[in-house]
């Protein structure tokens, strides 16, 4: 298969996303794969994960339920050969249903929700599965260019056991009209953009409770070395 079809990651420098201009390296990265193949990342114990850490509709309640559309986001974390990865730390953070982040520097004029923080975490089970309940995040404006808006998305951080199994990404929702205007989404090669979009799963929907989305995460090494 053509090597480029595996090159799913965005470039370091993608000028339409203006912050990359002063923050991306200008020299080629040094290949060190052979020297690092045994390097690991830490494992995390269950004691680090609170009982409600994967339920964002409950883990920050003060005086009621968070406002917005309740959803379930689940999937499997696996390697490039389809092998499920157990005990992988999956962390998420997101805006609330109005498109507002809890972050203190956030200045978007949309309401905070006293019952929603927007952060969660979980360890994958033996089959590599994870699952979150949350509120569907709203779109929000940002300063990249005039009238710039981010599509609805959930931020993901994934820590596997091998050093190359570290990933930070964003999950999007099918059919978002903002895709074609968003340089962060567009920074990914066209053929790979679908990999960032969760699938609506009618069969996983919980009647009278929550719509369900599937987002599988595939981890592997970055190196663009053409041969195995």
């Amino acid at each position, binding site marked *: *298969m053509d090597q480029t079809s595996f090159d799913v990651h965005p470039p370091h420098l993608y000028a339409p996303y203006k912050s990359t*201009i002063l923050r991306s390296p*200008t020299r080629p990265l040094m290949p060190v794969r052979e020297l690092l193949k045994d390097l690991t990342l830490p*494992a995390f*114990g269950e004691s680090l994960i609170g009982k409600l850490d994967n339920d964002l509709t409950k883990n920050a309640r003060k005086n009621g339920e968070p406002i917005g559309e309740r959803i379930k986001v689940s999937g499997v974390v696996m390697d490039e050969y389809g092998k499920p990865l157990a005990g992988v730390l999956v962390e998420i953070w997101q805006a609330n249903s109005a498109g507002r982040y809890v972050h203190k520097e956030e200045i978007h004029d949309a309401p905070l929700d006293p019952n929603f923080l927007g952060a969660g975490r979980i360890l994958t089970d033996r089959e590599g599965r994870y699952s979150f309940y949350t509120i569907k995040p709203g779109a929000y404006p940002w300063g990249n260019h005039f009238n710039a808006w981010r599509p609805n998305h959930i931020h993901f951080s994934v820590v596997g056991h091998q050093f190359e199994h570290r*990933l930070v990404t964003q999950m999007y929702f099918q059919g978002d009209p903002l895709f074609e205007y968003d340089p962060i989404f567009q920074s990914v090669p066209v053929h790979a953009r679908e990999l960032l979009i969760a699938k609506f799963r009618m069969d996983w929907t919980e009647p009278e409770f929550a719509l369900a989305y599937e987002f599988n995460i595939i981890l592997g090494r*970055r190196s663009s070395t053409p041969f195995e």
Partner: protein
Amino acid sequence: MDKLRQTPSQTVGPFFAYGLTARQYGYDFTSIVDNSLVGAFPMGIEIDIIGHVFDGEGKPIPDALIEFRQADEKGRYRSVPLEKADSDFRGFGRFGTGTEPDAGFHFITVKPKALSGQAPHINVILFMRGSLRHLYTRIYFPDELNIDDPILRSVDPSRIRTLIAESSGANRYQFDIHMQGLNETVFFDL
């Protein structure tokens, strides 16, 4: 067999703090790790590592997230899972550059020993708004024998200094990361 396509990388964005480094930033959520890699009774030499991440105009970046991963004072990577009430060497830490007055980072750890012919070093993973895929670099020490390290030997000699911390006091080191410019840090491809 055709491999599955990896999930593409995206930027960590500006708002990671309440999810990934909640306690450091004062948010009402727990943190699984912080900037201390040592346990309650550290073995070896306890050290502080401070630094900044500078952009292409030399300005310190106030919304970067840095992770450290390193071996302990005997050159061992921790293999047992991290736990909540953990008094052992953790060997993994995280810090965001949004809480120190000068957008710095600060880690507390022990001087690692590295086995198998490498010089002692700390692995650094770097994320930030404006970075679409994370970067990997290493911190070596000015007071160790680095000459035979296989990674340093393969680096352009004029850039080796970007991988070596400066001593800035007793058991204190400074390591600045430069994204661009004359002192652009060497980053590695995994």
